[in-house]
């Protein structure tokens, strides 16, 4: 480990935010094409968080969410995570599979997951969604930096937000006491939140990223 999070200056944080902007912009475009609807995104946030706060960050640690998780390998390593609320995932699946949104049987107030069951094909559709989003995010990141970055096949978990978020957090636990990530929220139409996209490079990879962009030498 050559850097600590505290050592990032505002300029470097801006660069990381811009990375999130470009990557997520491409991913949002890919998503919009897939579901044939307008997809907006918020300005990415670069956050440093202590572990204590981490499992509260996605609207509460117990909120049931769909998490799509994949690793980056190549010149930079780390994790990519796309987190959707269950009902947003249901909406997306229905659109992707050409089902009527009326069949939405997902009740977000109900923490019982049996109300929100995804069959095998639907799970596969969600994974494919993760694949396409992460693929477009990574390829734009790769073009921008000239670095070789490869995503793994995504894996899916439907569970408490805290439990899912702890997976990349543990990786950070090995080297420090806080997590740094680049978060972008996706929104469909005017108000419907779709999900959050997290880019979580390993500590060493931040340096590689910033070097490739000529920010640090």
């Amino acid at each position, binding site marked *: *480990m050559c850097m600590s999070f505290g050592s990032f200056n505002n300029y470097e944080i801006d660069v990381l935010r811009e990375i999130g902007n470009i990557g997520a912009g491409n991913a949002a475009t890919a998503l919009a094409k897939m579901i044939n609807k307008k997809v907006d995104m918020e300005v990415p946030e670069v956050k440093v968080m202590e*572990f*204590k*706060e*981490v*499992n*509260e960050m996605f609207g*509460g*640690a*117990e909120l*049931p969410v769909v*998490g799509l*998780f994949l*690793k980056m390998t190549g010149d930079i390593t780390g994790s990519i995570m796309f987190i959707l609320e269950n009902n947003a995932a249901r909406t997306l699946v229905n659109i992707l599979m050409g089902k009527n949104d009326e069949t939405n049987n997902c009740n977000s107030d109900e*923490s*019982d*997951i*049996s109300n929100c069951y995804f069959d095998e094909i639907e799970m596969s559709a969600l994974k494919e969604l993760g694949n396409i989003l992460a693929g477009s995010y990574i390829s734009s990141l790769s073009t921008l930096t000239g670095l070789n970055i490869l995503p*793994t*096949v995504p*894996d*899916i*978990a*439907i*569970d*408490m*937000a*805290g*439990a*899912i*978020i*702890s*997976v990349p*957090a*543990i*990786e950070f*636990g*090995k*080297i*420090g*006491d806080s997590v740094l990530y680049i978060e972008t929220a996706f929104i469909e139409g005017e108000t419907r939140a779709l999900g959050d996209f997290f880019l979580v490079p390993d500590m060493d990879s931040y340096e590689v990223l910033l070097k490739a962009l000529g920010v640090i030498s």
Partner: protein
Amino acid sequence: MENTIKVGMADMQAARHPAVLITLGLGSCVGIALYDRTTGTVGLAHCMLPDSTQSKNVTNIAKFVDTAIDALVANMVALGANRSKIVAKLAGGAQMFNFSQSSDLMKIGLRNVMAAKEKLEQLKIPLISEDTGGNYGRTISLDSATGILQVKTIGYGIKEI
């Protein structure tokens, strides 16, 4: 519920009766619940990693299973617990994603649980029950009145251990 104390990730708390210690959304992390029935003293730790000796950076002792158990026992004794009466319960240590390209990160849950058992045995603290492993998250709460550890899950029900 009176006097509910929340335990965050990489955090630990000890308390005198009456208190309910709760930690939300345990994934691969392990929740270590300690209880002394004679005084009603409780302690709960939410640990992320098995072994502090393999880390260069040990500023937060609650992050590691080994250091957290040591500290938690000390904190409970400081609150009046009877060291020889402390018993333990474990929950968590799941594997949230089943990667085919499994690295050590993916088995971290199992390693956390094993480390906890090892440490408890070393300290001669009896492990009376556990709900560990699987691929799902857990929310656990420890009640000082009964010593019951309630484990809540999504889709796998609620149980008391």
